[in-house]
């Protein structure tokens, strides 16, 4: 994303603020802006969620379809991420402008969800070697106000949490042809376990310190940031170093520690929010997106 133009004096002001642990909007270095989440907002999707982080708005829809498992992993279903950075979000995404960022985000997500301890792909298997579920996770960036990685990961986790996979009544092979019978009851579905799915925490290095959830102005003051995928148990499953700068060993280690502890916190907060939302059931008022 194009960086905001700032004067040297403004940068100095931000830099000192980060050093004093009191940022321009009064946050500490490790404080996020308020986040809002809503699930089940697209009726045609198997699962959906919207996350608003300051002025970043992300909509995720999950579609479930049937596919054949890959020959190397006959017992596993498939999970695919696609990020669409549409020019609606910011003019910088116009044409192929958002493509690089989009692939980067989807690659990071697929890497983060790849590990079997993170997400159980075997639960998506219908008939080993024959049929499995494939989840298409489509991520739409409606408004881009920075900190995309963190917001996207929250939305993805919420949407998968919300996903309803139809229950299979019977699956048989008859003369080499697979015969699937889905349950007649539309309310008979299985949900997916996301308890150990990761969230992404981006730590942006400003001066000698690092901050989370930077504003556009703060992003302009930074050369390098580290994206960590952290599970609820505080395990790091993917690391990505972005930007054109480099990091000292101590800074990196400090970032790892801060990142994991924040990741744990974020997973917990999301879990609580999703529980709260689920307890409200079908009757809750829907807000939809971009509001």
């Amino acid at each position: 994303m194009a960086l905001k133009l700032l004067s040297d004096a403004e940068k100095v002001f931000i830099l000192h603020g980060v050093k004093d642990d009191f940022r321009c909007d009064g946050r500490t270095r490790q404080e996020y802006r308020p986040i809002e989440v809503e699930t089940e907002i697209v009726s045609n999707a198997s699962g959906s969620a919207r996350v608003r982080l300051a002025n970043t708005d992300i909509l995720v829809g999950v579609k479930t379809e049937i596919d054949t498992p890959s020959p190397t992993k006959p017992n596993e279903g498939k999970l695919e991420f696609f990020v669409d950075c549409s020019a609606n979000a910011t003019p910088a995404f116009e044409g192929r402008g958002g493509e690089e960022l989009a692939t980067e985000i989807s690659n990071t997500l697929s890497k983060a969800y790849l590990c079997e301890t993170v997400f159980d792909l075997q639960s998506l298997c219908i008939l080993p070697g024959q049929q499995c579920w494939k989840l298409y996770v489509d991520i739409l960036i409606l408004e881009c106000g920075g900190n995309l990685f963190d917001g996207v990961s929250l939305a993805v986790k919420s949407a998968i949490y919300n996903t309803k996979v139809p229950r299979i009544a019977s699956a048989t092979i008859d003369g080499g042809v697979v015969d699937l019978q889905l349950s007649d009851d539309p309310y008979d579905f299985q949900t997916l376990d996301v308890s150990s799915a990761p969230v992404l925490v981006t730590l942006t290095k400003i001066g000698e310190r690092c901050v989370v959830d930077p504003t556009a102005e703060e992003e302009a003051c930074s050369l390098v940031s580290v994206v960590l995928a952290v599970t609820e148990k505080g395990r790091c499953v993917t690391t990505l170093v972005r930007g054109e700068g480099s990091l000292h060993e101590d800074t990196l280690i400090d970032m790892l520690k801060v990142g994991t502890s924040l990741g744990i916190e974020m997973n917990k907060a999301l879990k609580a929010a999703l529980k709260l939302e689920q307890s409200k059931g079908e009757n809750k008022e829907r807000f939809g997106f971009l509001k």
Partner: protein
Amino acid sequence: MFAMPVDTKRIQGPEVSVPYDQFLAQQSQQSNEEAIGKERIDGRKSDELREIFLKTAVLSQAKGSAYIEMNNTKVICSVFDPREIPRKSEFSVNGELFCEFKYAPFSCRRKRGHQQDSEEKEMSAYLKRALEPAVCRHEFPNLQVDVYALVLENDGSALAAAITCAGLALADASIPMFDLVVAVQMGISITGKKFLDPTLEEEAYCFTLSGSDEKGSFGRVTAAFLPSLEQFSQVVQDGSMVTETYVEVLKELAHASKDAYRLSQECLLKAVQTSKEIKNAEQKN
């Protein structure tokens, strides 16, 4: 100018093909796993690098080039003269690096395509970010330096080898740099065994969980360093790691990179000396 144009008419081979070794008896694989669990097959200590062979100026057409061999992992890398950034209208204050990472079709267990796949594109991005902080990009504004890394044979740690090799090739091409770049990989298995500079088998072993519960850490970390500035320029990690173990691994990688750094330096020095000798010899003639 060397970027391969996408040729749709070229026969790509069957769309979906399966490597045959998948149908081999599972037994040999299992016994192999057991062996790795005990000690490293090539007899190395857990914190020992493979023997590294480095050579610069291996290609005559490129401005700079380098070749790295770490036993069966072989990577060749070339760097071309700065040229104007193609298809770019705006002036950029800093020069750009264009990096392409490619596995040769025969380099891996499974056949690789002729065109870059998504994994190779990802690797290219890592390579670019690993090199960028080391290059004095302000010295060639509005220009682009092309870096091509080709993996001839992959037996583990291919990315690390490519980064080290590309760093050396840049230096060989006399591109101004703040520091050399070296990269090392480490794998860690669920049993807690560490493998510095893992082979392909060892990399795979780090991901076999064989039913053990999620307590220990496992996975791989590749880190690129600017050794004299003591900076990490890129860290690539996968698997699942507890912070303490992760930090430990990073520290060990930083330590191990010193050896690789020394080798890179020696290699460059030697190259300069030999070219000097050639010059002297020429003058005598």
